[in-house]
């Protein structure tokens, strides 16, 4: 086991950021940690690395008990922070070499490895430029590159693609997949379903500090198989109707976004007339049904949309 987390509790004041949270990550696995804002993803990562003490439970990394003081654990992890942590006044090469040097790499190792990493992150040719002139996507790639310098066994990426163009994003997803094929263990957090679907072999969905479901993508989808998903667009939706729909006993879950009701009914749609009767006065403009995906797993299990920002 590369990471073993068991019943971890972490409080910030009255706020329970991790609530009997458990997770196991095996060697070579790419685990996608999926959860909305404030779910506890970053807190989980900080606890794994030993940056914050936990209130209860047990964490071990590489089979070593995490007490926050173990340098051996830190040496073997590459940490890609959610926020950019690169030096803007310094060149890409200087950044790579600095972060490598924190892991005790020699001058020669730094020189050769920074060339390799530059290639991996697609920034060869830009190595001597100050990073403040880089685009958002290039900065993100460098942010990842800095944590690859010491060739870690475990890479932890905290929402590595936030706020970048689709092209850079695809680039990042591609090389995450490539790293995985070389046997590196990867913990990847995101609130973008497509990303987790694309890179992860195993998925852990978390909300409010605990796991609500985990498994492979097909396993997760299978959990909600048989549920029918209806998308009904109306002219002007209302919260009252949302409540009224939720009150219909056959309905498992309803969410409302942009004047669209997303209704989940177990066992196929048998009550469409009931639903339509309820919202007919809001002027239905479109009705659709769809195949469930990971997003629906989340919706089904929590009654919430995973994403609250675009």
């Amino acid at each position, binding site marked *: 086991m590369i990471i073993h987390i068991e019943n971890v509790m972490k409080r910030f004041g009255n706020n329970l950021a991790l609530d009997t949270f458990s997770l196991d990550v095996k060697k070579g696995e790419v685990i996608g940690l999926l959860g909305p804002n404030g779910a506890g993803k970053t807190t989980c990562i*900080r606890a794994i*690395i030993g*940056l914050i003490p936990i209130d209860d439970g047990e964490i071990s990394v590489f089979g070593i008990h995490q007490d926050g003081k173990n*340098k*051996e654990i*830190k*040496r073997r*992890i590459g*940490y890609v*922070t*959610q*926020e*950019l*942590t690169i*030096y803007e*006044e*310094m060149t890409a090469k*200087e950044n790579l*070499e*600095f*972060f490598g*040097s*924190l*892991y*005790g790499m020699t001058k020669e190792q730094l020189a050769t490895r920074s060339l390799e990493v530059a290639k991996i992150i697609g920034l060869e040719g830009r190595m001597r430029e100050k990073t403040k002139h880089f685009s958002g996507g290039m900065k993100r790639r460098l942010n990842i590159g800095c944590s690859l310098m010491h060739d870690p066994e475990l890479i932890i990426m905290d929402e590595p693609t936030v706020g970048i163009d689709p092209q850079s994003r695809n680039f990042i997803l591609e090389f995450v997949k490539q790293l995985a094929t070389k046997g590196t263990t990867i913990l990847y957090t995101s609130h973008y379903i497509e990303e987790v679907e694309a890179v992860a072999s195993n998925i852990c969905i978390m909300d409010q500090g605990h796991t609500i479901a985990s498994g492979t993508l097909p396993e997760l989808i299978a959990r909600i198989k048989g549920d029918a998903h209806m998308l009904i667009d109306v002219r002007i939706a209302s919260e009252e109707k949302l409540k009224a729909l939720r009150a219909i006993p056959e309905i498992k879950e309803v969410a409302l976004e942009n004047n669209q009701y997303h209704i989940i009914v177990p066992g196929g749609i048998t009550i469409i007339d009931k639903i339509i009767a309820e919202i007919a006065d809001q002027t239905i403009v479109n009705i659709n049904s769809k195949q469930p995906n990971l997003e629906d797993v989340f919706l089904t299990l929590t009654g919430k949309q995973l994403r609250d920002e675009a």
Partner: protein
Amino acid sequence: MFKFNLIRSSRDIFAHLILIAFPVLLIAFFNFIFKGTAIVSEINGTPIPYLTVLTVGFALTFQIYGSSLSFETMGSDFFSPMRDRLLASPCNPRSLIISILTTSMLVSFLQTIVVLLFAKFVLGALLPSLPFVMAVMILSIVFHQLLGSVIMLASGSVKTANIIVSTYGSIAPMLAGLYFPLPDTPVILAVEKYLTPMALGKTAILGILENNTGQALAGTLPLLALTIGLFFLMRPMIGKVTS
């Protein structure tokens, strides 16, 4: 790491501009205004030219502002998301902080040298006993870099440190009689010579220039004691941010 931080602070062009150009301009300006009063008579020892007093005074004053070199850097490393990134590495955070402190001291020292060279070669200031003068300058640099860092680490805020340091930086030279002559009463004279660390530095250096060993020591020793005091304060402060 040391090299990285040195390059990093050398790229802060704005800081160099302020910390070199301002003292140079102020020295030139006051020298121009008070050109008539060429000689300043101290109570004991050899009289020394006013330009020399200005040069020493402003070099010391801008070492106070220069303390932001280290605490701003520490702030951006340890009071930002960068902290997690750095602490996630096996590198000892103490050595990171020490590297920031020493590089900032070095940069502040180089800035002081540029100011002194300018005063000497462009304005023609007399600067005898340079090795001893530089020794006190270095002590003052070490003191002020530590002071700024201790204030920032204790308050946990770069902003607070900036406010305190710049207030001190604007009052200290006044109290040391740098901008305008202060009345010659014994109390005010004591304030002028000993009240602030900057005044201690000035007293020490003028003592050296006047060949007045007693005064040189009266400035140097308390400054040295204060520096050692800060040094011991720094230890728990570093622990506070890195654990």
